[in-house]
């Protein structure tokens, strides 16, 4: 069995330092396995949030060698083990202890997004009819596991700390899922522009790159939302065209 060194951030509330731990690694191990092994062997008080170990709960988000990743989905054979592997908490959220951050800001943001507003039922019994091809587009967004890696990698939140002006990629995806839903009749474009800060996204596609569910966040959610905002606020021609063509969503 080979030995690898893991450089793990230890400390509380933003204060702390990296500490090196060496442990034996074997084929098939992921970062979370190594962290658990280090907990068992060297640091029983190492704080780490985890749950499913299957890439579906979104709990074990961290930064591995500088990139936001799920610890349970990052195989050691995908990393160079000749150098220490750095494992640190997400930087876009308040630090709590070791690898754990306080992501509750995200829950507050979600509450502010206007909820699903279905049209009147299609049938007498109060049910709706939806064509499969119409739900295909929003189905992709429902894969989100809310790991908040996209929020963490987004430079608007990570580097510029504009949490009060920008809801981040995760919630632009959530808004897109509502806005593009074939039953929804709500209009969130005013909020998208003024309060949710869709114009702050400068399309670096880092969110798409780190998404463990491979959601095409930028191309399929954020840019279509930007285009809808353009429809409403910046394109008098298309607005006029849709008024005269009586085009409805």
């Amino acid at each position, binding site marked *: 069995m080979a030995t690898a060194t893991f450089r793990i951030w230890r400390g509380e509330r*933003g204060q702390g330092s990296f500490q090196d731990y060496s442990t034996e690694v074997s084929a098939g191990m992921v970062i979370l396995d190594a962290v658990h092994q280090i907990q068992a062997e060297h640091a029983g008080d190492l704080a780490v949030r985890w749950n499913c170990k299957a890439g579906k709960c979104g709990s074990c988000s961290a*930064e591995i060698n*500088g*990139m*936001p990743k799920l610890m349970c989905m990052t195989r050691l054979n995908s990393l160079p083990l000749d*150098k220490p592997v*750095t494992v*640190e908490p997400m930087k*876009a*959220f*308040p*630090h709590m202890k070791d690898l754990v951050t306080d992501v509750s*800001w995200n829950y*507050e*943001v979600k509450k*502010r997004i206007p909820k699903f507003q279905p049209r009147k039922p299609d049938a007498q019994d109060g049910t709706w009819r939806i*064509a499969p*091809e*119409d739900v295909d587009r929003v189905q992709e967004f429902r894969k989100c596991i809310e790991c908040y890696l996209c929020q963490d*990698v987004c*430079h*608007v939140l*990570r*580097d*510029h*700390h*504009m*949490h*009060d002006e920008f809801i981040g990629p995760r919630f632009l995806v959530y808004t897109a899922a509502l*806005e*593009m839903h*074939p039953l*929804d009749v709500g209009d969130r474009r005013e909020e998208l*522009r003024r*309060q949710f*800060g*869709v*114009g*702050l*996204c*400068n*399309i*670096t*596609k*880092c969110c798409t*790159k*780190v998404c463990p569910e491979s959601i095409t966040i930028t*191309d399929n959610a954020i*840019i*279509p939302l930007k*285009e*809808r905002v*353009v*429809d409403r*606020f*910046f*394109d008098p021609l*298309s607005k006029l065209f849709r008024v005269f063509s009586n*085009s409805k*969503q």
Partner: protein
Amino acid sequence: MSQVDVPLVRAGFGETRRADNWWVQPLFVFLGLSTFIVYSTWAALQGQHFRFGPYLSPFYSPELFGSAEAWFGASPKWLPAWVTAAMLILWAPGGFRVTCYYYRGAYYKAFWADPPSCTVGEPRKKYLGERSFPLIIQNIHRYFLYLALIFLVLLAHDVWDALWFDGHFGIGVGTLVLLTNLLLLSSYTFGCHSFRHLVGGFRDRLAGRPVRKLAYDCVSCFNRRHMLFAWCSLFSVGFADLYVRLCSMGIWHDWRIF
């Protein structure tokens, strides 16, 4: 808006714990775009060697003023002599590329380092994004799309013209160069995010509208390869100009296939 009390730990410019060669991609984007900007500016300033036989360089198509084949004949007196036919038109396809969603993301990283790459520290503390002047102007992209679509028709006409050598049908290597350029530019333009929105993306329901649904699916297909076509078409349009230019200067010989 919900606020968060995040300790303001800001990474310095270029600071990152990434172990990979994160700087390679922005460097290639910087070099690729810079090369194209320098070459296209130089070519646009030349005002000559843009025609060879039935071939017309895409940088000079349409030729509004200038030679005998120009749409409106010789340059009018009010037009300064240093203004070439390319300078009159290149702002349109140039504007389409500058405001393109793919290129925006690419040059914000490569030229503005905003950010240089994912999780790499930025040089500036202030950030405005695209919600205020000057970058709010990027929202004009769909208007440049309309112009780009017109240019595709004009370039298709140029390919048609490139099939006729002194009134006789024929195909030369130059014909294929112009045709390839047209196909790549079309693939790039038809994959535009704004085009995707306009053909169907603005609707929540496409069921029952088979033509619109087909158009949306086709554009989405091109859109998935938008970056690839952006680069291929950038290269092809530059190469098409270079080919016509070097043939016109007698440096390259245009092979007639039949």
